């Protein structure tokens, strides 16, 4: 009996501590004591997460190859170890090649739009457990990052920075339900906004003009905010996959498939200075019929990426 009272005391004490945290955070709204704790743990955990990244990378590569490996084991048991070694090597070169291709793509998008960028790697992905989609990246205030900067990858728009510490930055992705981006249809200049709905592969595009023409396959680019914060103009967002008919509503909406896939996010870059001239539609990927060398980058030919 004494045991259970003690347990309850522990529970009550810990609950009170938690409530104190809540109160402190609500009162200071992200400054002061709670901010100190946050910065401390971020600085402590981010390096650990950075080092586990390589482990998890090789683990997930292994996961993708698992089925093949099992068949190989049944057929040739003695070749198994060698097979694994070779596969891992292959996965590593693929990884390097993919990263090089991604960097190329980033440079290209930055060059075309004349963005001033800081390249970064994704450290951790907030799993969307509570519908918020965030990632942390390995650059911070030291590299000149502030909040409300546009984050892009070689494929298109990733999101915006929402909080910055010394060496890491938190990025809210497009899929985050709180994200709203002013956007227009490439080539048609119809305005609207893209919002996330908590699903990683799907965005919602709402147009201001209910009579505007929009069809599946139309491409969406950012409209651009004042001074390029939080979003610079002309970054590709995604492609329209279906148009919702919504009679009686003031706006017309469509489902958009983002160009950037969250689970394969690796190299991204933060736009620290917006282009002086709006690149309009020049950054959109070319239409599939035109054979241009750039197309070979966007689909993923490597096995490590096609999972």
């Amino acid at each position: 009996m004494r045991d259970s009272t003690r347990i309850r005391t522990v529970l009550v004490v810990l609950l009170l501590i938690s409530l104190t945290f809540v109160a402190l955070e609500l009162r200071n709204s992200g400054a002061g004591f709670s901010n100190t704790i946050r910065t401390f743990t971020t600085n402590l955990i981010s390096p650990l997460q950075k080092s586990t990244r390589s482990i998890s990378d090789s683990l997930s590569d292994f996961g993708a190859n698992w089925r093949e490996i099992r068949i190989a084991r049944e057929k040739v048991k003695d070749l198994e170890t060698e097979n694994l070694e070779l596969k891992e090597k292959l996965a590593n070169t693929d990884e390097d090649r993919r990263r090089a291709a991604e960097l190329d793509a980033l440079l290209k998008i930055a060059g075309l739009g004349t963005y001033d960028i800081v390249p970064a790697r994704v450290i951790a992905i907030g799993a969307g457990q509570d519908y918020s989609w965030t990632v942390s990246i390995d650059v911070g205030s030291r590299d000149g990052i502030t909040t409300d900067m546009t984050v892009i990858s070689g494929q298109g728009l990733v999101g915006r920075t929402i909080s910055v510490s010394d060496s890491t930055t938190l990025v809210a992705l497009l899929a985050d339900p709180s994200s709203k981006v002013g956007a227009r249809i490439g080539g048609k200049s119809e305005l609207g906004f893209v919002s996330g709905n908590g699903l990683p592969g799907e965005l919602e595009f709402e147009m201001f003009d209910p009579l505007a023409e929009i069809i599946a396959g139309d491409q969406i680019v950012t409209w651009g905010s004042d001074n390029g914060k939080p979003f610079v103009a002309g970054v590709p967002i995604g492609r329209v996959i279906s148009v919702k008919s919504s009679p009686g509503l003031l706006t017309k909406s469509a489902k958009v498939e983002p160009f950037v896939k969250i689970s394969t996010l690796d190299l991204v870059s933060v736009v620290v200075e917006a282009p002086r001239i709006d690149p309009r539609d020049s950054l959109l990927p070319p239409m599939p019929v035109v054979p241009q060398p750039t197309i070979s980058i966007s689909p993923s030919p490597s096995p490590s990426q096609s999972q």
Partner: protein
Amino acid sequence: MNIYKYLAVFLSIVVAVIFQPTFFAKLDLPGATPDLVLVIVACWAITKGPAVGIVAGFLAGFLIDVAPPGNHLMGIASIILALLGYVIGIIGGGQSRSMLRPLLVSSMAATSFFVFRTIWAIFAGNSISLEIFSLNFLTQGLYAAVLAIFVYPGITYLDRKLGPLSRSDELRMQ
């Protein structure tokens, strides 16, 4: 008092918090992301009872709130997880040979935390469709059960290896 066991609880949760966003989020499974942290808290609470459940839950909640890339109100998750750890310790506690109980309890813990977070998200003003909610709810429970198959034996092994936690613990086991 066995300091090593508290250390084991602490370390297992820290490892889970580190791997959760770097590994499980990258797997890109359909629906929800497997919640390793919750399963570990549930398994400790099942093997060691409410006291350890409360401490593990509080710690896990604290880390979830402050560790990157989390962006929550600090303290909320520790309240919920400490309570969850307590409840699991009371209703699911005690060692048994059956494997079914830890699976069920883990998946219930993961889904109830998920439901709480959904409510929280709705209060925060996010609109959540029923489709997404039910998909995530079901997969969350399923993944937690699958994770528990691996996590529970590991934790009972650690538990046996490190010996009893305290004298009262020893008495209860007899």
